[in-house]
């Protein structure tokens, strides 16, 4: 064995930290799948006021910052969407209650997680996480039809140890492909979906739109608007953005709005200078 940098006790703690962070993120995906987002924000995210102010949620088009904005988008807007999706069911069946107990009818949101890559900071205070989603999504309609797609994207997170417990601090949910079930992706240019998502169709080759798979409506209006992830260019910045071994979290390179996630190389260089 090589020269030992940590004490045995520290090594044991780091061993558990690794498992705890994986566990925490697994819980996030459980909540995400079941629309239990309020519970997620309450239980899994940072709690200390100073950290709640700087918490962020990134999507392809920007960052929601602070727990209030995150909650408005992540919980309230989703709830509104679910009510609008429930309405046609209630119109078709007047006996069906237009209330919260029936929300999520016809919805499946399965973000199956693959390949979690994570590093605990050498100072033990934070962790950086990335995983790949190969999931599926279904939106049912009152006429018995459903829009089903395979959903893909990378998810990134900065996690923080708050009073001995790991919590989500910065989360980025990117999305790059929404392959319609039963269709060849090569046929996609000719295809338009029921959401009105144009996605990566022909004209976008020139005037591409970062709202690839989720509609602009679904992504909402982030607090900080910038291209966080442009599906058209794929994982060009993956290597720069993925977690690497580190001593302590540098705000210039974290997964929050002040970090350089998704930025072109020249922007990153400039920040380093």
């Amino acid at each position, binding site marked *: 064995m090589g020269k030992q940098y940590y004490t045995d006790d520290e090594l044991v703690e780091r061993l558990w930290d690794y498992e705890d962070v994986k566990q925490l993120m697994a819980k996030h995906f459980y909540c995400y799948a079941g629309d239990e987002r309020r519970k997620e924000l309450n239980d899994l995210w940072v709690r200390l006021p100073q950290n709640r102010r700087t918490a962020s949620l990134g999507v392809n088009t920007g960052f929601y910052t602070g727990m209030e904005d995150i909650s408005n988008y992540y919980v309230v807007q989703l709830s509104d969407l679910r009510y609008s999706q429930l309405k046609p069911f209630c119109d078709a069946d007047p006996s069906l209650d237009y209330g919260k107990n029936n929300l999520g009818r016809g919805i499946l949101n399965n973000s199956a997680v693959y390949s979690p890559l994570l590093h605990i900071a050498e100072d033990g205070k934070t962790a950086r996480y990335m995983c790949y989603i190969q999931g599926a999504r279904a939106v049912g309609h009152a006429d018995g039809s459903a829009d089903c797609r395979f959903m893909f994207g990378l998810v990134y997170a900065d996690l923080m140890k708050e009073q001995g417990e790991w919590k989500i601090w910065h989360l980025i949910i990117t999305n790059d492909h929404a*392959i319609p079930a039963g269709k060849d992706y090569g046929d996609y240019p000719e295809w338009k979906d029921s959401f009105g998502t144009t996605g990566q169709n022909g004209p976008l080759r020139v005037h591409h739109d970062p709202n690839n798979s989720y509609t602009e409506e679904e992504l909402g209006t982030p607090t900080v608007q910038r291209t966080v992830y442009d599906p058209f260019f794929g994982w060009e910045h993956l290597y720069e953005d993925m977690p690497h071994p580190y001593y302590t979290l540098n705000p210039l390179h974290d997964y929050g709005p002040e970090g350089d996630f998704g930025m072109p190389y020249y922007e990153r260089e400039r920040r380093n200078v």
Partner: protein
Amino acid sequence: MGLSFKERLHQALGVQEIERLKIYHAYVHSVSYEREEFDKIWFKGENSTWTHWFGMMQGFEMIYYNHTMGEGHMGVLDTYEKADTDEFPSFRGGDVRSVGSSGLHGLTECYIEMAKDGKSGRLWAMTAGVMMDTLGHPKVRGEKGPYAKFGEASWEYYGADFVYVDGEWKYIHESVVPVFHNRYDGENMGQRQYKVTDDNPEHTLWRGIPCRVGVKGPLAQMYDVYQPVQHLLQECPEPYDHLDDEHSYSPGHNELK
């Protein structure tokens, strides 16, 4: 004899590090960052091996050449061809290795067995991964028209050996058994595989390029409608004392040299 606390701790940390190396490999491979993989996480010796069904690359130099000059070079040429057209002017200046790619051989939970001597670990895993290209390619992937989007599923099994050298875990053997490679949810993958094999039973190319291999394949069996299910798998690691020809994905290449 049982292991001491320190030895067990070393093994537990080794499991996590081996898992991390395998996952790191999957991500950097997905964007053709071959140097970042082979420079960083591989054991650079003559007993390093990298095996696919078409053959075995023996020794770090051969592996490095095939991946950085062969596979990596091919990816770069692909991208230059795209960038050389008026279709993608905004591509110019992008990273030619990774731009447009967005798919991963996503790994399911890895099975990892550590040697009792603490000097090696063995991993078995499977993927129902994907290979995506937002750009397509007029020559290589142009069946659906130039620049049609490209999304493929890639189903594989993996066996890998790792060694502990100078205080660090390193990859020494990788063995890939591909079983399906098909358009995502757009075709019957079993029938497609049958046709590919039927059309060219001697097929030994990798990404369309000839490789330098020490042992020529086929070394693994891709899916076939007649094959027994066990023929697709490498052996899952059993508890073992140390890396040797009985416990290795590359018999004959287990000395650290």
